[in-house]
């Protein structure tokens, strides 16, 4: 049943929105929040909104968070809506994460990897105790510094790859599927799946990734590498014909390494799941990598038994903007729909009662 538009209620709606604006501002005696404060001090929320809004622009994400009173799904929705007002200028050359200026880079499988294990600004190893000093806005000491690490920091995948123990990337330069331009169709290629996962809801991806660990399509994952840092963005403008850098983005990349027994044509080797996320987003990148690997079940000849291995289920439901739209539209007026259902039910009951009444005398002894 479709939603049928209603008329009226304009004055109430205007008043509701005016109240919303006042509620958003909160107590006028408290200093108003600046978007720059959100961008600088609520960076993980900004990263999440950019990822789920599928638009890298920290300032706009901060604005969306302010406008939505910190409702991050609503904020992502605002970014998605905004992006539809802009023309597409170009597509970048594929980002080269091997050249990332690293703020973080760890591996759970290689202790002594070239370039070292760099923790970066992480919540790992914190005690998860509330820090009451933050209530007082105490000054913060500058981060310690040490002599910069010399030498390259190759991706772990490239190190293991040399021995052939790890499945290699199938490099190509094919034009990737773009789900902002074409509707998703199944079976979906890995390009379409990665794009869908990259903007999928973090909580949903986390739950699905977790489900694979709990036995629903287990593939025994290890974090081969998790790296975060800044990557140059390059495009080839039509007017120039050569690549130019237009800026940088901060990304988190996860290489998940998984067991694979091999097949008739492939020797036993590790397979991989891949996650790439805007900003500093360990959890999102790891969950994406788990689900990416799970979605490769068919390609790798594994039995498809669990939700996380079903591309149509995962990709059709992981987008929280679509999900919230369809779930939340249920609260809009459905009076006409409901009226028709009501009449159907009344008719069914009336028919049943008539049939019962007609059959009763004969049934009596």
């Amino acid at each position: 049943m479709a939603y049928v538009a209603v008329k009226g209620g304009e004055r109430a709606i205007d008043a509701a929105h005016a109240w919303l604006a006042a509620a958003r501002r909160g107590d006028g005696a408290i200093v108003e929040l600046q978007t720059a404060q959100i961008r600088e001090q609520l960076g993980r929320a900004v990263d999440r909104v950019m990822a789920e809004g599928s638009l890298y622009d920290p300032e706009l994400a901060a604005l969306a968070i302010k406008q939505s009173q910190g409702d991050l799904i609503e904020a992502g929705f605002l970014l998605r809506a905004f992006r539809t007002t802009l023309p597409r200028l170009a597509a970048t050359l594929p980002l080269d994460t091997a050249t990332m200026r690293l703020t973080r880079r760890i591996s759970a499988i290689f202790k002594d990897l070239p370039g070292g294990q760099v923790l970066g600004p992480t919540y790992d190893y914190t005690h998860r105790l509330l820090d009451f000093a933050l209530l007082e806005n105490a000054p913060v000491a500058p981060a310690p510094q040490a002599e910069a690490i010399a030498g390259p920091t190759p991706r772990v995948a490239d190190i293991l790859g040399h021995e052939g123990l790890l499945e290699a990337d199938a490099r190509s330069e094919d034009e990737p599927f773009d789900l902002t331009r074409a509707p998703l169709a199944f079976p979906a290629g890995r390009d379409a799946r990665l794009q869908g996962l990259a903007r999928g809801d973090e909580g949903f991806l986390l739950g699905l990734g977790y489900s694979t660990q709990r036995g629903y399509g287990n593939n025994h994952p290890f974090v081969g590498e998790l790296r975060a840092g800044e990557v140059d963005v390059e495009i080839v403008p039509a007017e120039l014909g050569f690549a130019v850098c237009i800026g940088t983005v901060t990304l988190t990349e996860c290489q998940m390494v998984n067991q694979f027994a091999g097949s008739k044509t492939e020797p036993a080797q590790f397979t991989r799941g891949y996650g790439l996320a805007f900003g500093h987003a360990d959890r999102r990148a790891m969950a994406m990598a788990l689900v990416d690997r799970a979605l490769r079940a068919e390609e790798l000849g594994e039995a498809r038994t669990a939700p996380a291995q079903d591309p149509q289920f995962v990709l059709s439901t992981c987008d929280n903007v679509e999900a919230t739209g369809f779930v939340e539209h249920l609260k809009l007026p459905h009076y006409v729909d409901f009226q028709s259902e009501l009449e159907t039910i009344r008719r069914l009951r009336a028919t049943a009662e008539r049939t019962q009444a007609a059959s009763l005398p004969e049934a009596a002894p």
Partner: protein
Amino acid sequence: MGLLARAVPGELAAHLETAPALPDFVVLRGPQTGLVMLRGRAGGGGAPFNLGEMTATRASVRDATGRIGHATVAGRDAAHALAAARLDAALQDPARHAALKATVLDRLAVSETQRHAAGARRAAATRVDFFTLATQR
């Protein structure tokens, strides 16, 4: 062009204040803000996929000497794109190149290098040497 695009807009504007004046110009296109689709590679080195978009602003100008300059810069800052395009045109002028390079590009390069170095030093301070207790395989 990369240096100009990656510059902190405030810094670029400050350097332009002290640099030799740029020639007058007419805008040929923009400044226009739009989207650039960021692409990654599956597995980091495989087939390209669309990761998500970013905002970007582009501008093209022709300056009084007839030179044409182009710029595309990440973000929505029209003044940044216009300044980068004007510099792109002026830097093609052999009579201006050296002075503009010294007052703008070199300074941007220095501050970018410092920024990267500071990040690398902070990262190095969090470098950890794990050692396993059970077996040293």
